[in-house]
């Protein structure tokens, strides 16, 4: 199965994400933000963490309007898989592929530490390698990870079982303790924590590896 990882000026988790996808069996191509098309036959697009375009204007806002992102939106609209991590999650909300927005952390500080996440649903290709209710250790590293959406949207996300991960101990003020959400077709996942930083024994934890194994496995057999 083939994966593309988007690289923006200011991305800094792109290679980590590529390594995690490769370790899970994906054939990975890096794509530059100025490319207007994804390579042929891409099954999943990874949008990495970092500070795309220096976080100017709003985190992810300029990236969301870059040439490659138009192709990523088209890929998602065709039913393609997309995984946005940290800044990638911010980009996905800015494109409108995922609802809501990421605000400045309620405590105003940049938070960089490992947190506990509760797997809120196993019903997606990304989370099928866990059981709902599992608690996993995944690092966060963000300044703007405070998930916000209006009450109707939060109710819809809950009602449609689209909250993928929630914080056990909310570090940033996110509504409903949301750490990651799914699109309505469950093929787009955005999450603030970094599973690619917990995907190898050398990282000090491997709780994120199951996410990459599950999604690459699902796409291989698809």
């Amino acid at each position, binding site marked *: 199965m083939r994966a593309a990882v988007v690289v923006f000026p200011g991305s800094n988790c792109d290679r980590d994400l590529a390594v995690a996808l490769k370790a899970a069996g994906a054939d990975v191509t890096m794509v530059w933000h100025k490319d207007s098309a994804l390579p042929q036959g891409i099954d999943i697009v990874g949008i990495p963490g970092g500070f795309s375009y220096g976080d100017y*204007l709003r985190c992810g806002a300029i990236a969301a*309007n870059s040439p490659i992102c138009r192709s990523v939106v088209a890929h998602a609209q065709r039913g393609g898989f997309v995984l946005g991590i940290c800044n990638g999650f911010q980009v996905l*909300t800015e494109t409108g592929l995922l609802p809501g*927005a990421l605000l400045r952390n*309620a405590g105003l500080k940049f938070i960089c530490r490992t947190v506990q996440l509760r797997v809120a649903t196993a019903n997606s290709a990304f989370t099928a390698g866990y059981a709902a209710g599992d608690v996993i250790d995944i690092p966060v590293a963000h300044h703007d990870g405070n998930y916000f959406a209006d009450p109707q949207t939060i109710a819809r996300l809950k009602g449609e079982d689209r909250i993928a991960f929630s914080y056990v101990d909310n570090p940033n*003020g996110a509504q409903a303790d949301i750490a990651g959400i799914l699109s309505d077709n469950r093929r787009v996942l955005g999450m603030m924590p970094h599973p690619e930083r917990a995907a190898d024994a050398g990282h000090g934890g491997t709780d994120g590896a199951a996410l990459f194994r599950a999604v690459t496995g699902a796409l291989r057999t698809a």
Partner: protein
Amino acid sequence: MLRLLDRVYTKNEEKGRAMKARVHVMLKNGVLDPQGEAVRHALGAMGFDGVQGVRQGKVIEMDLAEGTSEADVAQMCEKLLANTVIESYSVEMAS
């Protein structure tokens, strides 16, 4: 001096009808503004105890080419300058 400036402005006006737009972007009411809240705390700590609330936003000034309308600027706000999930905007046009 003022007169001179006035005249320069008029000249530019005649040449290209240069317009400026000033866009104000603010977090919507009901969206917590932790930065504004931190500023309010700091002001209170400095002895400015007459401040009951602070909201922080941004101002974006643009020089516009001839024929760029307020409706165009509104489109820019909708598509890029503001995230209307969390922010409201207002546009001021000036020559």
